[in-house]
């Protein structure tokens, strides 16, 4: 008999995992969280996601779903009478999916080098990250959230920037999201951090900071 219920295979410091938790909590779904040691992945994780072996994986009544953005859409469709995550209008849905892809493919790739760059190289990668985020910022268009008046799909996908980017900035000494360069995004950061499901799930700042400091040192000395 297949196990019943909802399980999330995750890692406490992963922003991709937190998206899934936000989506589940928006719907009021009770779930079991399984924290993975990514250096020593569990048999269960590897069984549930043999293709990419990554977290997050959502296991619903024994059936696994991988890829965080896809999991969020799944959650929205299964618990369709709960809080609406995706917009209902087809064009708005397309915009939300487009920007989610842009953020995950382009912005994340632009942000990652900021983490390890030093000196002059840092200035260049900071500028590139800012250009990427400025483009993304356009989708906010003077709204409270990317989803409009309410926290929606795109906020779930990129909301992690509000907590993780300031940590990346502190660890690397770079200043990316400033009042001068990205005022609209910065203001949105404050609104994100005030959302209940966000507040309930953020990992402790000192722990996250320490992990990222250690990771940066490791990468720089490699």
């Amino acid at each position, binding site marked *: 008999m297949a196990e019943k219920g909802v399980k999330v295979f995750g890692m406490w410091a992963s922003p991709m995992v937190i998206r899934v938790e936000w989506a589940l909590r928006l719907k009021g779904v009770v779930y079991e969280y399984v924290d993975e040691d990514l250096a020593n992945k569990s048999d269960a994780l590897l069984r549930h996601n043999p293709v990419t072996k990554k977290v997050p994986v959502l296991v619903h009544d024994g*059936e696994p*779903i991988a890829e965080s953005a896809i999991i969020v859409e799944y959650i929205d*469709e299964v618990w369709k009478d709960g809080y609406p995550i995706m917009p209902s209008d087809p064009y708005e849905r*397309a915009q939300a*999916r487009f920007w989610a892809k842009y953020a995950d493919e382009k912005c994340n790739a632009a942000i990652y080098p900021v983490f390890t760059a030093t000196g002059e190289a840092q200035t260049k990668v900071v500028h590139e990250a800012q250009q990427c985020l400025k483009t993304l910022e356009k989708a906010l268009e003077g709204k409270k959230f990317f989803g409009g008046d309410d926290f929606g799909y795109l906020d779930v996908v990129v909301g992690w920037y509000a907590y993780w980017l300031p940590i990346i900035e502190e660890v690397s000494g770079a200043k990316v999201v400033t009042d001068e360069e990205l005022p609209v995004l910065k203001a949105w950061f404050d609104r994100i951090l005030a959302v209940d499901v966000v507040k309930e799930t953020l990992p402790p700042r000192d722990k996250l900071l320490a992990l990222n400091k250690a990771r940066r040192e490791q990468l720089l000395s490699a």
Partner: protein
Amino acid sequence: MVAGEKKGVVLLDFWVSPFAQRCRIALAEKGLAYESVEQVLLGDKGDLLLRSNPVHKKVPVLLHDGRAVCESLVILEYIEDAFPLATPRLLPADPFARAQARFWADYVDKTVYGIGTRLWRLKGEQRAAARAEMLETLRTLDAELGDRAFFAGEAFGFVDVALIPLTSWFYSYEKHGGFSVQAEFPRLAEWARRCGERDSVAKILTKPEEVLDFIGVLKKHYGVE
């Protein structure tokens, strides 16, 4: 909609683009009328393309009553959403099956074309690495397909649409990588032939030899020997 903007569906297109072909196949399968507007990609890009896709400046772009949707898989989902009565449905109704379809289409997107490009653009060890990744990818897709007629089972759907245009490029990948899809992955080869029996696919896919010629043009363009 801004006054003067075209009603209906326009696809900003490029003859050999497998990504544009995904959209054309979906529209054709559903019997949806559209105008294909061929773009210049290897020279100065046209105004309409640059205005419609300022972020990526790429095809395909679907313009529906003047509003632009970009990124081929996003376009496929838009076609499903915007034309809810058009059949066949490319995504199943069940959320779990939908998630599986999205996962595999995303997997195709993250692998085949990028690895394939490295296979023909690079040499020596880098090409060997790309070859190994391509075989691993095709093996994974072949295993996922299994003995089913199509990726989701009995019906031609989302993952099939995502992958089938890339099969025109297999011949070029085989030539550059020194392998045979038919020999290594006969189920995948059979699936490609099965899809090719569909009118939409037969009419829309580029002939493999023409893709190889186009890669020759790209090599010159990028200064690759």
